[in-house]
């Protein structure tokens, strides 16, 4: 472990959905030429990632579950002690959950970047106040979504802190591949992500009208009613297939073969209303037009580039209508144009290089 480099404090184990933060970290490593260390909590079902490019991952164990109050106290204290030892030049705090780390530091590093990947209320009602009183230690805040940014800036008093908006779009221009030709695709729709009858409309798949559509579902069954969720998925007939929880590499390989992807969250909280998931951007990067519920950011992007389909709402009929339209367009020149537009969107705006540029202009030339 090196000192004087970059340290990122993560709220989840690396490789399980935080590609946006990894991209940010890698870009900072490239920009400043410093080694980097990621301090992550112990998610027992996730292996410790081995990362390339000078990134070191250190897992911080806790005697209680890291998401419990005692677990959080342990994690924050241990991480703060580690940071005090490492004395990094750049500290990245990922998510409000880790903001209390700032309170325990012996000395503020020269540059502190707060990557506000979730809304401040996501981890509890006290978090906005933690954020508010921690502003004195934050040099730059990076938000992935502008509505969340506006809400949290107001809530936490971040008006005077330089703010950047960087979409959760981790694909670099250099890594952008040509999309698989539409004619060679499997004509199916895929959904990957959290599976929860109460959060991601899994119950829709139980309806025979929805089962007429060719949908592949990947993801981890969780939430408050996992058994009910599992029952719906296992019993879903027709053309719906539940493919289980697969690793990232499998999904990356499978994704470009699909005709469409689905992005939808129940708008039961701020985070989900203003959803801006990585997988939406990954789908576009793979040349797979997204079918998205009208969450503000996905809607804006799809309408701007005409690279997908926006549902009218979150209702069952809205999803049905959107899928109907999707299947009508598949195989037509209009579909081909959507695929091309995905590529254009990535090249013009959604590539990580462009996103990082918005952050880079707020950073010092050298550190």
């Amino acid at each position: 472990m090196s000192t004087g480099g970059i340290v990122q404090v993560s709220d989840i184990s690396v490789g399980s959905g935080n590609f946006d933060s990894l991209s940010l970290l890698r870009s900072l490593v490239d920009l400043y030429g410093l080694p980097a260390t990621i301090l992550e909590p112990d998610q027992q079902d996730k292996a410790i990632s081995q990362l390339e490019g000078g990134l070191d991952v250190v897992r911080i164990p806790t005697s209680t579950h890291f998401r419990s109050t005692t677990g959080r106290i342990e994690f924050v204290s241990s991480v703060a002690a580690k940071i005090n030892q490492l004395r990094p030049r750049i500290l990245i705090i990922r998510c409000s959950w880790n903001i209390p780390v700032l309170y325990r530091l012996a000395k503020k590093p020269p540059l502190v970047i707060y990557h506000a990947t979730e809304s401040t209320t996501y981890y509890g009602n006290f978090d906005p106040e933690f954020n508010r009183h921690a502003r004195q230690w934050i040099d730059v805040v990076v938000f992935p979504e502008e509505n969340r940014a506006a809400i949290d800036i107001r809530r936490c008093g971040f008006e005077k802190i330089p703010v950047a908006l960087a979409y959760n779009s981790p694909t670099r221009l250099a890594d952008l591949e040509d999309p698989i030709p539409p004619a060679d695709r499997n004509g199916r729709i895929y959904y990957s992500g959290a599976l929860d009858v109460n959060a991601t409309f899994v119950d829709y798949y139980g309806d025979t009208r929805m089962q007429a559509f060719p949908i592949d579902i990947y993801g981890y069954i969780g939430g408050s009613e996992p058994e009910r969720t599992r029952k719906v998925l296992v019993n879903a007939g027709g053309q719906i297939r539940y493919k289980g929880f697969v690793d990232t590499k499998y999904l990356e390989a499978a994704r470009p073969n699909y005709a469409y992807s689905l992005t939808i969250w129940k708008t039961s909280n701020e985070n989900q209303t203003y959803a801006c998931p990585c997988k939406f951007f990954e789908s576009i990067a793979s040349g797979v037009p997204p079918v998205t519920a009208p969450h503000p950011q996905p809607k804006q992007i799809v309408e701007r580039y005409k690279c997908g389909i926006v549902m009218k709402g979150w209702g069952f009929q809205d999803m049905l209508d959107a899928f109907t339209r999707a299947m009508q367009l598949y195989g037509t020149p209009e579909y081909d144009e959507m695929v091309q537009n995905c590529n254009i969107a990535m090249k013009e705006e959604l590539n990580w290089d462009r996103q990082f540029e918005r952050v880079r202009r707020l950073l010092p030339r050298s550190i």
Partner: protein
Amino acid sequence: MSRFILIDQSIVDIGGHHYEYAQHVLSAAKAAGYTPVLAAHREFKDTGAPWKVFPAYRLGFWKRMSKATVGERLAKTYTNLYHRFFVLKTRLFFSQLGFLWVVRNNAIEYLRWHPFDSAFKIGYAAALAVIFLPIRALFRILAAIVPFRGFFRQIWETAWTTMRGALGLLFESLSSGGTLHDWRFQRRKAKMFAADTLDLLRALKPEAGDLIFIPTLGVPEMVGLTEVWDRYQDSMRPSYHLLFRRNLYDGREWQYGDQDELMTPLRNAFLAFRSRLSSARVFFYTDTEELTKQHERVSSLPFHTCPIPHTESPSLRVASPAKPLQLVYLGDARAEKGYHYFPALVEDLRRDFLATGRVEFKIQSNYNIPKGESEAVVARCLLQGVGGDGVTLFLEPLPSEQYRSVLREADLLILPYDRDNYYARSSGVLIEALTAGIPVVAPAASWLGRQFADSVYEYRNRLLQTREEDVVPARRHQLWQQSGTGKSWYLGASREMHFGGEDRSAQSWINVPRDTGYLWIRMDLDSAEEGHAVLLNVTGHDRSGRKCEESSDILAPGYASTQVVGLVPVGPQTTKVLVSLRHAFADVELTVTNFEIGFLLQNEGDAPLPLSAVGAGYTDVGNLSAAVREVLAHYDHYRDTAMDNAPAAYDFHNAGRLVSMLSTQASTRESTGAKQETGMAKTVAARVSA
């Protein structure tokens, strides 16, 4: 020579909207033969203006202009102390001590599951936490043997509640968001305005022919004026002209009834003011018809609508093909003016217009409050991230000269204001653009959209007239239905229709003739005076019944007529349209008469027609980019129609007309206060509650 005394306590320097306003009015007053006098904030430095300046006022109209009081400084100290306390508390919580505190009641349980020391090294300390249990038990025993425990607990709770109440009251009184604090500020404002006005008038020694104009005031200033009249008799010699420019109600006229009770304090203030008018000659104004209605409704006083004075006479504008079109936003960066929509607009237009050098954006971006509203902060960061590629941001308030220069060079003014906040309120910059012949984009059915709605409908009517041979009316007895209620009817000779909100929208399937380029629709709104508007949705279906296009428009009348005319493009693949009409904002029943609908044919290959004139009104912010594209696609047409409209706009809105209006009022014998009830709004008399 009589004097024209303009009092604006918010003028602190020569930049900014307030001084601009005053400058235009005083210049016109001078031209009309008055001796102009400006009374401004005490911080105003006279920079050689051609009129006498009295820096008389200590407190501006806006709260942010006031210096911090002792109470506010105390509140700030408290905030700083609380911050230190919170940081300390958080440090303690996220430490071994905090951990111990959390497990104190379950220390043994914790140790059972974690018998060996963890990396946090809490094991031994957790073992010590076990001691907490007997200590707690001991206290409980002691508490149990204390006699009259309930009595002492009650005293403690009462004392605690009282203290919290007192602290809460103190906080209300000191903190800038508190009701008490606000009340104290309003009283202070009234007293200081009264004192400063008294000093001003004693220095000026006003005469009967003098005219005092106050273009920025609220209730505290009104209360202050009555004190001045009570204490200085000569102050009643001149005439007073009070201009109110803020919304009283939210929404539109048909929604005011539910808010009348909330207006009671304001109404009482106006009534009290009226009863103290005595022999002072006072006249009331707003700068929009809609605001006049609001103020008359609340105050039971007659108001007049005056023009917006800070305009320039129109001059010929020619867009140079070599130069990018200048898309301009002027005004401070705040959410109600739609500043936060600009990042998306810039991105939407990047590929086709910015990157090709066809347009440039010039966006005023100074905040209205020191920190900036959060939406504006985010938007400005995004715009700054564009990095100067055809986007220029002005981060500081623009000095007058620069403001006028930017406006003069503008090719299109984009004003994505909040439709509801600006239903009744005016936009000075919109009038500046219209009088200068600059096309605009603004929300339909707002005060802004209404300023050119008449021109839009005139253009569409003219289009249908000049291309009469291409006009194909829809079948006479068209079948209409209400989707939610199942009602259906044939549109008969009366050409009258009724519809409400979404469930009661009127819908009809209409076959589209060959070579159709556009669908047009025309109707009179019976309730035109009441702020209603129609939402027109047109969904096109192709031969196989698939939906192939969709568009919508909000049709709200202008001032000249109750008629609205819609014009919507129809694509070549559309063979049938579903036309839907409903109230644009709520489930309120609308009656329209003289309803007509039809198609406008167009030869294949003909250039698309402009859909509007002078400017483009958009339905919702999702259509903002489309509205800007529409203007850019037919720029010469929009520029020409805006220029044609400019002289009439300038004839109405200019400082000379404002001064003339005030002078005419001043020459009337009686003031507003002495006027009889007959001069008041008809609805107001009925609404005065017992």
